[in-house]
């Protein structure tokens, strides 16, 4: 699992790549928390480099979304593909979060 940060159009973009599972979820949440503590208004998680997610990874995304919402910000998710997109949809996250295929779409929707 790799986590990197960018700022685009006043939006904090965090790319999560690799595998977000039981073994990596703790480190991912710790790394995300640093950004969440900064209370970003616009927060985008880009999953285009993510190959695998389990419920431990969904937990990280859910916690991040709840925190951003509670602090008055907006969070969106983009780039999920293959198995990751399927797991998000089966888990109802497509109804819970703003999921976009392309990063540009997500940025334009803030």
């Amino acid at each position, binding site marked *: 699992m790799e986590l990197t940060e960018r700022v685009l159009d006043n939006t904090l973009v965090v790319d999560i790549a690799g595998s977000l599972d*039981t*073994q990596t979820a703790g480190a991912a949440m710790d790394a995300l928390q640093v950004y969440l503590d900064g209370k970003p208004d616009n927060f985008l998680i880009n999953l285009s480099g993510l190959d695998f997610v389990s*419920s431990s990874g969904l937990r990280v995304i859910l916690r991040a979304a709840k925190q951003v919402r509670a602090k008055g910000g907006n969070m969106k998710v983009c780039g999920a593909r293959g198995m990751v997109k399927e797991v998000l949809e089966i888990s109802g996250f497509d109804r819970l979060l703003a999921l976009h295929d392309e990063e540009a779409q997500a940025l334009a929707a803030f």
Partner: protein
Amino acid sequence: MRIELNSNPDEIATAMAALQAFAESGAVDEAAAQAAALVLDELLTNIISYGLKESRRDQIILELDIVDGSLQIRITDGGVPFNPFEQPDPNLDLPLEQRQPGGLGIYLVKKYMDEYNYEYRDGQNIVTLRRKLTA
């Protein structure tokens, strides 16, 4: 393939490596291998985090086989009796503020496997799952 695992979170990586080796050596398609990886992450995490905590029998046996055109996964542990498939499915219609992550793991296991079965026999939890392979 049959491997023995200790009740330690690091052993999930051992199970994943065994699955990968099994998938590469046989006729397991990529979708089935990915589904199996998801299932192992979910079920082994549950067993190691909860089931075996209060038990002295901390060994987990993982068996991977091809049976009747399906990938069969069997996980046996000596933890407290627990049927993971008895818990209710999560309510996916709740708004974000009320959504809890609990229960999603087993829900995903059910969705990604074609068959799932639990039995408690001789002091052991035995979970057997099958996923059809594409020819």
